[in-house]
Every structure is written in structure tokens, then in C-alpha cells.
């Protein structure tokens, strides 16, 4: 089963996205911020895709994306940034950090699942 890791400091967002992805047939791992997500990767969790918020406490999404790329087996795993942030400079930072895409909230379920199909064509 394809596993998606959700990283967001909003419990509401985690719950909402988890409901959408679970219904679509994905297994879901959640983390409340970048550091927690990084810890999970360090403990052997190997998601097929990561969807991360940008503005989070402890470790923001862009730093997390940069660090996640260094984790074993995560070099080519798609990382989508899902955020309210619309500043172009932040987007460029995320791209440089290794993010695969940038999605501005709110994103409809169909749009989100469509993007996932694009970055995970076989899933």
C-alpha cells in the first residue's frame, strides 16, 4: 500500500487530509512538525510521498524538506509543500531545498488526489 506522510502543526489539517487520503486508499503517517517527521524517517518510516506544511513550530517545512533529502532512501521521494504561504521567494527556497511541488491552501480533494497521481503515477 502506498504510504503518505502528512506534516502539519494543525490537527484539523492532519485529520482532514488523513480522511481524504485514507478514503482514496492510501496509508497515512502523521507528524505535527518537521522535527517529529524527521524523527519518524530516522526510525525507519519510509513513505512513498510527503505532504508538508511550511510554517510550523520547532522545524519549518522547508528545513524539513532539506533534511529529509539526507535521510536514507528519501532522495527521490516526492515532497509536496501544502501551505497558506504565497510568497514567491519561499517557493523558490522550497524548490532549492528539494521540494517536488507547491500547493496553496485550500486545495480540494480532487485537486490534491490529482497531484498525487501526477507525482506517484504507479500508485
Amino acid at each position, binding site marked *: 500500500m502506498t504510504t503518505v506522510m502528512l506534516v502539519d502543526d494543525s*490537527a484539523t*489539517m492532519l485529520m482532514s487530509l488523513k480522511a481524504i487520503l485514507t478514503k482514496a486508499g492510501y496509508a497515512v503517517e502523521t507528524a505535527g512538525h518537521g522535527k517529529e517527521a524527521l524523527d519518524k524517517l530516522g526510525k525507519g518510516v519510509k513513505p512513498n510521498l510527503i505532504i508538508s506544511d511550511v510554517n510550523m513550530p520547532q522545524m519549518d517545512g522547508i528545513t524539513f524538506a532539506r533534511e529529509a533529502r539526507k535521510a536514507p532512501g528519501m532522495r527521490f521521494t516526492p515532497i509536496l509543500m501544502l501551505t497558506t504561504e*504565497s510568497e514567491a521567494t519561499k517557493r523558490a527556497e522550497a524548490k532549492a531545498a528539494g521540494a517536488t*511541488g*507547491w500547493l*496553496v491552501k*485550500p486545495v*480540494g*480533494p480532487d485537486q*490534491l488526489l490529482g497531484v498525487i497521481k501526477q507525482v506517484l503515477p504507479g500508485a
Partner: protein
Amino acid sequence: MPSLLRRLSPATAAPEEQSVRPDAVATALDPVPAYCDVVDGHVHDVIAQTDEAATAIIQQLVKVDSLAEVMAGDVAQLAGTLGRTETELSQVSSSNDQLVGRLISYFLHRDQQIRALVDQMRELDQHVKQIEEVSRATNILALNAMIEAVRAGEAGEGFSVVADEVRKLAHRSAEAAHGIGSSIGDLTARLDAVLSDDSQFDREQEIPQTNEETAMTRRLGGIANAQREMSELVAGILKDTVNAADQVQRSSAALTTETTGAVGHVQFQDITRQMLEHVAEAVVDVRRQSEDVVAYARGGLTEEELMSRVISVEALRAKHVMSRQRSTHAAQTGGPAHADAEPLIELF
């Protein structure tokens, strides 16, 4: 110190002769931190309430979605069972039709054989009548022979005995022929009754009769018709139920699509939360600045320290992360409206 206070409040600057009273400014600003704390408390209360409401909404939607899926599964199972029942009923009905058809054929064939037998027996009746005729003629001949034997006198005595025996034989032959004829008549009457039995059952059913039909074949035809009508009725009910089940399945699928969409819309709470958190941060800035002014007025802060911490609308703008926040900012300050050129979804 007074000159700075005048600069900070140009709109309320006092005339030259009016002296600025720093203590009054500090006293006037004293309630601002508490005021800001209350506003901050309200903002965070709204955040907590919307968070709680959004969580409850998602939980309810997930539950509704789950129930809709269970219902769709149950209905699909029911529709499958009904579909199979409809097929089986159709097969049973067809099988019954074939069975009744074979029975009707069997009875028609049997009836034809009985009719042929009756016809043959009626032909036997003709032969019996011929035997009776022969017996009568033989009896007359025997009587004539006896008369002739009496005329012949002593010479005819032997012949008279033979003639009497012939008469007796003729009589017995006539009796036997009559018995056979009666038996044949009785048998043919009974077989006719079997073929043309018109019972109360047939009259009640008002089944049309044809020349080839008998009571049994008419009954079988009636049973077949009744069974066919019942099958068609049940099949119609099953079909309607299957259609209703399909409709429920489609409605359930539409409902789960709607609930998923609704779950997606709950992202509004996260966006609202972030906007309110920025408002709360701005309130904290106002609070701090009021404290700084009070401290300056009371000599606890230098002018340089105060001015280095003064809040600005431009600094507030720099904290915005959303396009909507920047648009609102521009609308309030009269600045240029900010339009994001970047797409909402972009794959690098």
C-alpha cells in the same frame, strides 16, 4: 521627552502654551496591555472554538461517510441477492413451464390413446351385436329343426336332441354376447367420463376448452398460467427493488463524494487560524509599544530605545504570508493591491 511625545501624537499635538504631561500619557496607556490581553484572549478563544468545531465537523463527516459506505455495501449485497433470486426465479418458472408443457403433452397423448381404445371397443360392440344376431338366427333354425324332427317321428328323435342342444348353445351364446356388450358399454362410458370430466374446479377457473383438451390438460394449463402470472409479479417486484437498491447505491456514492469535498473545505479553519494568529501577534506588538511609551514617559526607556522598537505598518505587511492578507492590507492602507503571479499548484 515632551517633544517626542508630541511627535508621536501629531494629531493631538497641544498648542505651544499647553504643556505635555508625561504622567498623564503613561496613566492613559496603562490599561492598554490588559486591554490587548483581553483581545488576545478572545482571538485565541475563537481559534480554539473553530478548531474544536472543525474537528467535530470532520469526525461527523467521516462517520457519515463511513455509514454511507456501509449502507452502500449492504445495499449492493442486497441487490446482488435480489438479482440472483430474480435469475433463479426465472429459471424455476421456465423449468415449471417446460414441465407443465411435457405433462400436457403426456396427457394429450394418453387421451388420444384412450379415445382410440374406446373407438376399438365400440367396434367390438358391433361384433357382439352380430353374435347376438347369429344366436337368434341359430335359435330359430334349432326350433325349425325340432319341428322337422317331430314330423319325422321315431327317425327324427336323435335329430331332435341335437336341435335342442343347438338351441341351448344359441341361447347361451346370446347371453354371453349380451354380457360382453354390457361390459363394453360400461367401459366405454367410464372412459368417456374420464376424458370429458367437467368438474367444479374447471368451471370456477373458467378455462376455455378446445376439442383436444381434457379436464386434466385444462387444469395443468390453468396451473401453468397461474404460476407464470405469479412469477411475473414477483419478478416485477424484484426488479423494482433492485432498481431502488441501485438508486440507493448511487445516492450513497454521491453522499460520500460530498462528504469528502466537505472534509476538504474544513481547511478554512487552518487558514482562519493562521490569520487570527497574525492578528494576535499584531495585538502583542501594540501592547508592547504601549508599554514602551509608558516606560519612556516614566523615564525607564531612552528615546533611542523607544524609537528602535516602534511598530510600523510596513513591518506588519512583511509578516503576511497569504495573498488575501496582503490584499486586505492594501485595501486598508491605500497601497497597491498585491496580486500573486504564482500558480496555486505548481510542480517543480
